């Protein structure tokens, strides 16, 4: 494990020195071959798993969380009675591997384990004592072993958020997807902010525009003045910033028009967030013909005599969906249009779009398919679905 971040972790070293067999998979440290007793009073082996906390690529020893997860049957005492502590709890470690029990046992004195070594050895004792009572020769320390299963995720540093929440199985729904984002303005940049934190394979950014100060005031994060002075292309700017985290981002410093639609050909899903694309209808039609699902976003905001009001719209174009919703392509900025946008409303519109995308992937539950989501500033209401569904007034 010469190149592993666990090299420098004292608890991992000590467990290996004492002949524990360990592996690292799905951002969980796994103790292989922990003896325990089943309800049938049989001595067998299970596995303990705990999410690893990283600071960058440095393993943090001891997370303050006293819980651990167990892969095996209901652990019992030597009489076959369930021992106190474990409770049934599905916790995904990888899309293929789940723990079936969560075990909670706080150390008697401090209430927290000082480090991962103390935590693991304590839980091994709890599980293996009954096994040793039945068979004194069993042990969890059969010989040191270390296996590190690479997660092949498109990230620069470990996604421990998924491990802590046990969402590996759920997040697998993003694998294999290649996302296109057309337009990296206020809304598109916030869409990227969220998509870059998912397990999608690649993200392609399309924008021919320059990133200036006014864009910085509608974008996630805080742009550096030195970056602004260089007048970067929007797609290239955001690709550089978000490549700090996601490894699959490509910038195309071009506007998508009817003449270069083939650039979208690799995408499995497209977010249309370009305000000024004259060819919006042609782009959407091209995607629809190829069965590539898309979501378009658009807002209209006006100064209504001292306060702003307006609508935010998300229009879904999914295969099999009828074309009933009003597209954001059915209108052009005119002489009266001051192009009012605010970062919070750009962000909300982007989040409504991202949530609709995640519903399409079945990541989030959805009562029924909807072709549009509309937020109204004045009433504060969100309407989902086409036409005159009367029940959504909140």
């Amino acid at each position, binding site marked *: 494990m010469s190149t592993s971040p666990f090299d420098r972790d004292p608890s991992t070293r000590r467990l290996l020195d004492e002949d524990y067999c360990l592996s690292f998979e799905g951002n969980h440290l796994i103790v292989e071959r922990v003896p325990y007793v089943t309800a049938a009073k049989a001595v067998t082996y299970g596995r303990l798993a705990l999410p690893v906390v990283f600071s960058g690529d440095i393993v943090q020893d001891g997370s303050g969380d006293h819980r651990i997860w167990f892969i095996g049957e209901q652990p019992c005492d030597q009489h076959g009675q369930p021992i106190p502590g474990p409770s049934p709890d599905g916790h995904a470690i990888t899309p293929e591997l789940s723990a079936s029990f969560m075990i909670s046992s706080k150390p008697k004195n401090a209430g927290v384990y000082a480090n991962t070594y103390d935590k693991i050895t304590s839980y091994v004792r709890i599980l293996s004592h009954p096994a040793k009572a039945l068979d004194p020769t069993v042990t969890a320390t059969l010989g040191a072993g270390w296996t590190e299963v690479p997660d092949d995720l498109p990230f620069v540093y470990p996604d421990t958020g998924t491990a802590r929440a046990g969402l590996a199985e759920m997040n697998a729904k993003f694998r294999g997807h290649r996302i296109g984002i057309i*337009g990296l*303005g*206020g*809304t*598109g940049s916030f869409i990227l902010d969220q998509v870059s934190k998912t397990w999608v394979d690649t993200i392609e950014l399309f924008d021919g525009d320059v990133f200036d100060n006014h864009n910085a005031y509608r974008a996630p994060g805080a742009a550096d003045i030195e970056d602004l002075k260089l007048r970067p292309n929007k797609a290239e700017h955001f690709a550089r910033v978000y490549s700090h985290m996601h490894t699959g981002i490509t910038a195309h410093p071009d506007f998508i028009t009817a003449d270069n639609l083939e650039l979208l050909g690799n995408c499995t899903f497209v977010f249309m*967030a*370009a*305000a000024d694309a004259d060819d919006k209808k042609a782009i959407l039609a091209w995607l629809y013909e190829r069965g590539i699902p898309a979501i378009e*976003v*658009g*807002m*209209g*905001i*006006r100064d*209504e*005599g001292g*306060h702003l*009001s*307006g*609508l*935010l*719209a998300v229009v879904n174009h999914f295969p099999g969906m009828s074309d009933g919703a*009003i597209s*954001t*392509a*059915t*209108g*052009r*900025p*005119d002489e*009266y*249009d001051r*192009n*009012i*946008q605010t970062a919070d409303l*750009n962000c909300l*519109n982007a989040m409504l779009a991202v949530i609709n995308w995640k519903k399409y992937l079945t990541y989030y539950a959805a009562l029924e398919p909807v072709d549009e989501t*509309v937020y*109204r*500033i*004045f*009433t504060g*209401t969100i*309407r989902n679905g*086409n*036409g*005159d*569904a*009367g029940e*959504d*007034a909140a």
Partner: protein
Amino acid sequence: MSPGNSPGHGEHAVTIFVNTREFHWDKKEISYEEVYNLAFPNEPLNDGDVARIEYSRGHNGGGAGSLQPGGTVKVKENMVFDVYVTVRS
């Protein structure tokens, strides 16, 4: 209440809100085009442009929905309409 905004002074006029502003309306129904003209009397839509019209606090238990071009909806006291062209992002 601003009588100047009223298209009529019938006995059964109701107050409706269009883009946050109060209007009097004395017909039982209102059309897509009529709502649009209340919101933007000086800004006719260009060919092919469609404004989005959302309403709520309507009939049938506070009915809400979107009004499509050519469509009409029954009006009710304090009904609320939002009319915007949603092209920006």
